[in-house]
């Protein structure tokens, strides 16, 4: 009750300031300054009628990336308000009024779809990932969207996935401080997050894996799996189908889906009846690498001689024939 009283007092002071501003010019009343707002909200005990805190940590706000901005730049509905204390419920902050491009990306994402169309209130909007009055750039270590903090931020909702990710080789690399180790947003994007079963998104994943594992993905594109994927089909295996997604582990780890002992099971997901001989298949062949497969190396060498040899021989044969025929044919 006391805080309610304090708020009312402060608001009365604010109104007089606004009224004074109104006198000096007949135009719209001067919007409340950040100091005006902090007169009430700067009090750590500030609460609204229902008891929820409305306190804003001025120091943290000033240190945030939006620090130089005024409260009403975001809480735009308060800019023209002259009656204080203002109503309990304010208009939603429209981040997109500045961050328009990102806003429209978000609007097309599964998160926006869930929140705006499906009415799933727990689906995230801007503030759920970026914070509110303490927004920090992703380049700052304390930011919720700094690379190292992204798994925790996404894991705030996707807790089960985060547990899978935490044991993966990618999470281990991230914890070791390897800054290019993949986090959620590398594969899923930050603002255009799609359902994981959409074709377009799945087809783009190979290139994402290839941004680090270039040679491995190049070898994949030489296989039937890779070629069919390149043609736009998701019915054959791409990276995640064999290696897993969030819980990727190296083949040397016995828990890995591609560990020697698990290959029959992993290949068998699609190739029912796969056996020990079947899994001797090399899903990442390289005809240039003799160690990896001598017969493939020899086959490659063989055709490198036979194909140019054959075309060269018969090409020359045809050219000579053409030339001789033209000479002998009366024109």
């Amino acid at each position: 009750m006391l805080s309610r009283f304090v708020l009312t007092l402060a608001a009365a002071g604010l109104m007089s300031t606004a009224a004074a501003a109104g006198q000096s010019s007949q135009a719209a009343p001067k919007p409340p300054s950040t100091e005006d707002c902090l007169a009430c909200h700067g009090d750590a005990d500030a609460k609204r009628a229902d008891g929820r805190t409305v306190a804003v940590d001025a120091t943290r706000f000033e240190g945030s990336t939006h620090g130089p901005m005024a409260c009403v730049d975001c809480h735009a509905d308060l800019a023209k308000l002259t009656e204080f204390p203002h109503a309990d419920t304010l208009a939603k902050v429209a981040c997109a009024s500045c961050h328009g491009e990102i806003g429209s990306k978000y609007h097309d994402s599964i998160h926006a779809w869930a929140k705006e169309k499906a009415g799933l209130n727990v689906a995230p909007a801007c503030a759920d990932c970026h914070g509110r009055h303490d927004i920090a750039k992703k380049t700052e270590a304390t930011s919720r969207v700094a690379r190292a903090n992204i798994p925790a931020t996404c894991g705030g909702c996707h807790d089960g996935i985060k547990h899978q990710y935490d044991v993966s080789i990618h999470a281990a690399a991230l914890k070791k401080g390897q800054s290019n180790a993949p986090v959620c947003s590398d594969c899923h994007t930050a603002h255009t997050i799609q359902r994981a079963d959409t074709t377009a998104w799945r087809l783009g994943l190979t290139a994402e894996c290839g941004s680090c594992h270039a040679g491995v993905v190049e070898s994949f594109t030489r296989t039937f799996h890779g070629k069919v994927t390149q043609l736009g089909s998701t019915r054959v295996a791409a990276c995640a189908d064999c290696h897993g997604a969030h819980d990727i582990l190296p083949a040397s780890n016995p828990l890995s889906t591609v560990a020697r002992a698990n290959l029959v099971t992993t290949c068998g997901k699609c190739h029912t009846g796969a056996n020990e001989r079947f899994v001797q298949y090399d899903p990442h062949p390289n005809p240039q690498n003799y160690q990896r497969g001598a017969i493939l190396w020899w086959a490659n060498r063989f055709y490198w001689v036979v194909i140019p040899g054959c075309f060269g021989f018969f090409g020359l044969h045809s050219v000579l024939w053409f030339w001789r025929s033209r000479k002998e044919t009366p024109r």
Partner: protein
Amino acid sequence: MMPLTPSTHLRRFDARTRVLHVIVMTTFLGLAATGLPLLFSEAAWAQRLASLFGGFHGAGLVHRVFGATLLAAVVWHVADVVWRAFVRGERGLFWGPNSMVPQPRDFADFFGMMKWFAGAGPRPRFEHFTYWEKFDYWAVLWGTALMGAAGLILWFPVAASRLLPGWMFNIALFVHGAEASLAIGFIFVVHFFNGHLRPDKFPMDVVIFTGTVAAGEMRHERAAEYDRLEAAGTLDALATAPPSASDVSRGRTVGTLGLTLGVGLIALILYAVLL
């Protein structure tokens, strides 16, 4: 007995051979058109070519149907040759002027052809099959056997793994693709030139569709065979009525279609390789 004039037609290919050629030609074109999107999956045209067959999965289905048909046709042909040779006792299939088996004369003809190209001798006098025709024949037979085997391994990998190690899938895919490049390049360039597009035949030779050749043309093309048959007195027995205008026109239509599609596919390959 009709008098033999240069415009009299002589039988060259029986119905079986012509049907076999049409099957091989159709399935080969179909296999090339449905397989090239996979071989050149990174090319800009790959998805669009596959979409003509209902996308990759449609193309894969058509490819398997054509592949099975071609394999069946080749098995039928081999069985037919075996039956003709060993059941019907037909002679000369495995040796002699009418045989597809390379003869000493083919090597002599080849060197004769080189001399003729160089202007150092006359055009060789050819027999029933020339050395380049035999090369075509054996290339198709060998290629179908090899690509068919590789194709079946890739089609039924789990079944194949009961007999073969999994790394054979790697070999099978590589060989299938490399042999396809060889076959497509050879048929759509070399065979098209030798059989159809060279100045003597341009734009095409319809003998494989109509089955008959004018006596005058045969005398020029296969002088040794002509003289041999004439000396043996069996040339007249091959005489037949010239193909009807509609037969020739049908042959030309089918031939033009095949040549156009084949050259079109070569253009796509060159686009993918060079650009």
